[in-house]
């Protein structure tokens, strides 16, 4: 069952992936916020502490600019604990670079997109999303 029209995000790093949506209600710094060993959200100040990010299509309003988040993302991609795709509310250089390094080192391509906030607000947690190489995001269930 399709639940809406596909949208085209702005591609910060191209990749393809699909999974169930996880919408973060507050920005997250991956450093201090994501355990790359397990894919768990560990930021004690974040309301969704304990959430599992691995394999999910994660919608987040913003990164929080920690320099080390690029390393944490690259390590999570290497360790297969990364989200299936990252859909951001605003451009984020640090996350784009983390994805670029993981592709250069391991040939794994995590999609990092900027998507419109009004579209993101219509996505339910658990809804199946498919992200394509060209930045198209399709809700598949």
């Amino acid at each position, binding site marked *: 069952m399709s639940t809406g029209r596909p949208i085209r995000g702005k591609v910060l790093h191209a990749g393809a992936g699909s999974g169930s949506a996880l919408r973060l209600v507050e920005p997250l710094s991956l450093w201090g916020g994501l355990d*790359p060993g397990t894919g768990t959200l560990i930021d004690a100040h974040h309301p969704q502490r304990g959430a599992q990010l691995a394999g999910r299509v994660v919608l987040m309003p913003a990164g929080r600019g*920690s320099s080390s988040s690029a*390393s944490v993302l690259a390590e999570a991609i*290497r360790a297969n604990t990364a989200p299936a795709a990252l859909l951001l509310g605003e*451009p984020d*250089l640090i996350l784009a670079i983390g994805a670029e390094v993981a592709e250069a080192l391991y040939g794994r391509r995590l999609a990092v997109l900027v998507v419109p906030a009004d579209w993101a607000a219509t996505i339910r947690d658990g809804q199946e999303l498919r992200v394509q190489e060209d930045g198209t995001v399709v809700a598949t269930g």
Partner: protein
Amino acid sequence: MLRGEQGSGAALAMRLVVRAAEVLRAERLIPITRAHVDSCLYHGPATLDFANALVDGGARVRVPATLNVGAVDLLHPELWHGSAEDADRGRQLMDAYRTLGCQPTFTCAPYQLPDARPGFGEQVAWAESNAIVFCNSALGARTERYGDFIDIACAVIGAVPEAGLHTTEARRAVMVLRTGPDVPDALRHADVLYPVLGIVLGRHAGARVAVLDGLPPLSEERLKAIGAAAASSGAVAMFHVVGSTPEAPTLADALGGRDPEETLEIGLAELRAARDSLTSDAGAAPGGPVGAVSLGTPHASLAELREIAGMLDGQQVARGVELMVSTARDTLAAASQDGTAARLQTAGVELLVDTCSYLGPLLRPTDLPVMTDSGKWAYYAPGNIGAKVIFGSRLECVRSAISGRLWRDERAWGGA
């Protein structure tokens, strides 16, 4: 360069700089005079794989590059309570960045090293969120928010995309935060206000540039405390303080002569709530036991080391309590010259360099709460090392370390 005629390391660096230019929508690259590199902190095999790809590919930095903290204290390896394997991986990564030509400063506060401070208007590539915000705000030098990998890439290329905070337009404040009339004057003149104000700033500003108004002239240490906290609770990369930071001699200068998008008044109740949010140990009460105290996040300046020594005033840290102060190896060398380090060590203080106590197993294991005067440490330590945190002023921290019991002084906050 992308094709690798200068080696595969330089090609990898150029690939990242080009990607950055695309993300930032820059039309050209501009030269930089120096870099500060955060990539030397081990976060797993990917970080070492990347460094080795640069080393094996023959890359070298083209501009002077200082290094941020690593995982271990290379000068005091006994201050490590984790596995030998983890320490070894952390050390390998720190060594790899020295091989690339970076200077072994291993500090998150390179702006406290006289030779590493950029001048007003200098274009640089700095990583480490607190260093970025200090560089832009307190020094008036210009850096975008660089993170791991892109920092060393810019240092190898010697250039950055012309975008963001490298340009004058992006540096003007778009919001005003003004402390309210109910904020006691004593609090405005207390160090403890500034990490708390930084937490509030980060929450309101997010990634925007804000200007703080209504504050007395601030020391570099207070600007450091604001910035480190604001870059923890928000993505702040620059702020102004009217009368204290170089691009804000007046409010109108900070705003670039335009009207702000938003003006907020910060009252005492909001500040108290932000202060309380930094204490994760809900049951903490005066007189309760304290297991350890961590000071020096960001790394303590020489003035701060002297202040801590003065607060100890010949007294000893309580038996069984650890008082750890993180600083730069160069600052420790200066403190050893003037006798401050000896005064601290005699009192039982542990001086940690090259790393920071919330990055790994550096504090002795304790089930008791750990006290800190740092907004950043308080913010990250629960997630990073599982510490139960009590936030307090530097004097509250030191006196609690001496007695082993939580000591509070609420007077500056308008309380008993």
